[in-house]
């Protein structure tokens, strides 16, 4: 019905469009202003919270890292970079960095390939595969604290389920002190982490696998590719974006590991399972050396930031083209 009143703009080049009037331009400006105000109105509450509870405290932690400060009143005892020099001489913190690296390497070398294998297996036609998927994913739903309490019982020396089961099948020799043994605590911890997190990565991979068109695999099959070739040359390359995200999440998770360690070992025995976050907690909330603890948190943040930026710049580049690295890919 609009066409009855308005000139048909498609009717030809001879129809001159009237130039936008000043009033029309004003109206548009007003609408734009209104839109802008609406946007601001919606953003202010979130921004206030973000700035007040995230940004300012972060900046404050950065500031406090340069003071010797017990956590009460304002920091006043400026010590320059002392906290940082002390930090990089502290054998416990250097150990934290080493353990962090060990966890990252173990996760990438064992946990993720295992999750991938499970995902590929559960992507086959299989009776009751929905049940399996749910079962493997279930540990991820548990909180880290619950997982910690559970496994400190399972791995209790002598009395725990693990030692009973090993004893029951005649493998008493494999039973041990688990979390209580400085040489095995990290391995045991990694076992629990894998139990808890492989299901999550498996789910990611399953979602990725399902977005791979069946035609491609079929075509490879017709071309005579065997199972390994099909996996290596079709599935894996097409799953790469998912893999890259999963690696990213896994590394960041390893850097920040806290809850599980705190519940199970509190970093012990004798610091052998301590992580950066645990050390930070010890200094911040047990010893009230908040300046030093802030320095630890700043270093942790720095490591996460450098890793995240480098990873996005060099590894996720293709997946995130334009989203973070440049302003290019805005659809034009």
């Amino acid at each position: 019905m609009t066409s009855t009143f308005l000139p048909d703009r498609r009717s030809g080049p001879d129809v001159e469009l009237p130039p936008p009037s000043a009033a029309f331009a004003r109206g548009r400006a007003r609408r734009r202003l209104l839109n802008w105000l609406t946007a601001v109105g919606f953003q202010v509450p979130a921004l206030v919270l973000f700035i007040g509870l995230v940004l300012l405290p972060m900046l404050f932690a950065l500031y406090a890292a340069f003071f010797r400060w017990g956590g009460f009143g304002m920091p006043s005892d400026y010590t320059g970079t002392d906290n940082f020099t002390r930090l990089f001489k502290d054998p416990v913190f250097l150990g934290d960095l080493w353990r962090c690296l060990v966890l990252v390497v173990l996760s990438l070398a064992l946990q993720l390939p295992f999750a991938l294998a499970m995902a590929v297996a559960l992507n086959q036609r299989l009776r009751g595969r929905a049940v399996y998927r749910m079962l493997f994913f279930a540990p991820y739903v548990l909180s880290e604290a619950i997982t910690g309490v559970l496994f400190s019982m399972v791995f209790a020396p002598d009395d725990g389920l693990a030692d009973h089961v090993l004893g029951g099948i005649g493998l008493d020799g494999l039973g041990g002190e688990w979390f209580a043994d400085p040489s095995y605590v990290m391995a045991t911890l990694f076992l629990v982490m894998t139990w808890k997190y492989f299901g999550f990565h498996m789910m990611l991979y399953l979602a990725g696998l399902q977005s791979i068109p069946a035609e491609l695999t079929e075509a490879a099959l017709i071309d005579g590719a065997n199972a390994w070739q099909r996996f290596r040359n079709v599935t894996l390359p097409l799953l790469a974006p998912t893999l890259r995200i999963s690696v990213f999440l896994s590394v960041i998770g390893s850097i920040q590991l806290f809850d599980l360690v705190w519940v199970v070992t509190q970093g012990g025995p004798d610091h052998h399972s301590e992580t950066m976050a645990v050390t930070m907690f010890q200094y911040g909330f047990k010893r009230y050396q908040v300046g030093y603890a802030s320095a630890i948190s700043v270093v942790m943040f720095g490591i996460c930031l450098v890793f995240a930026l480098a990873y996005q710049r060099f590894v996720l580049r293709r997946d995130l083209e334009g989203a973070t690295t440049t302003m290019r890919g805005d659809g034009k």
Partner: protein
Amino acid sequence: MGDRALSRRGFLAASAAAGMGVTALSACGGDSDGGSSDGTTTVEWWNISTTEPAKTVWAGLAKKFEAQNPKVKLKIVQLENDAYKSKMTALTASGKLPDIFHTWGGGVLKQQVDAGLVEDVTDRTKPWVDGLLSVAKAPYILDDRTYAIPFDIGMVGFWYNKALFKQAGVSTPPTTWSGFLDAVKKLRAKGITPLALAGKEKWPGMYYWAYLAMRTAGLDALQKASDDKDFTGAGFVEAGQHLKELVQLHPFQKGFLGAAYSTPTGQAASVGNGKAAMELMGQWAPAVEADAGKGLGKNLGFFPFPAVEGGKGVITEVFGGGGGHALRKGAPQAAVDFLKFFASETTDIQLVKKTGVLPVVPAAESAITDPNTKAVQAQLKGATGFQLFLDQAYAPAVGQEVNDSVAALIAGSKSPEQVTQSITKTAKEEQ
């Protein structure tokens, strides 16, 4: 990315900000001098008795005091242990404390006294304070002045399984360190785990080092080390060496480095279930043993930490702590009256009977029925010296470092010398 780091960092600074907020709020919190037109005085009483039965018993005592002193109103503020500690730190920074407040004595009380915030009650309590157990008063006496009145006292000692001792042929509890090591060897020879230890929590291990330091270096040396921030004296190294002698006998339960204290597989449960013969623990041990494990009933016994041959300390010096009440500077007379009321024999008998604390008034010991509590009470009564729990006596960082270094000594990664050096280093940093 970094989401959790952000929130954790946020939490850190936010809690700091909250601390400052409390300071600011408390600074403008109304006047608690409490004088009002009709002549009644309101006295604020801050305590940490948030659990039953103490909560009800204490409220009842407050009512009784109000009935005896019609012109006084008691306003009770109860906070959970950790919340109380952080709130008090903020209040100390703000410069104004409640009229009557809970204190553990030691380093924190000294800090508050040094800031001029605590009333010196030496003269005002003189007429009746002599009747209290001297060891109970010790944590609150600084430079011969009294700053708080105790209502609870306890000590650490060995809790042992009489049946297992008998089985190993240890007829009487050892009174010397070499006798103690012999008992450990005898128990081991019979296949009995001599000691249970919660290695994960560190503080139970610290008890050994603290007691050994008391026995070798002596109480004065501990005080001097804390004042001079120097723990490298020969007596402290010797304490570590004695602890190492013990550790080398492998006296602890399997997996003790990962064991907690009060969980079903922890230190208390090991003793309570008869799996280990002894633990070095405070007066609360029997209750926790029965709670986390089965409890030993009549088989449970208590003996004080043995003396070390050639050391400066004696077996009658005790390591422990309790609870007391201090007054803010300028608190009304009614607050002093309340301290007297709370430390009276009638009140103490009620506390001993109903809340299970050890008596601070010697006459109230008639209310004790349990033989083990009686044994602890006898030790406390005959005590010739007292050392407060190190984490209360020292600054938090120093206390934690003691725990940490001693744990490393027990795990075999620090030498006795290194323990004393680490503690000294942290003490110096804290200044």
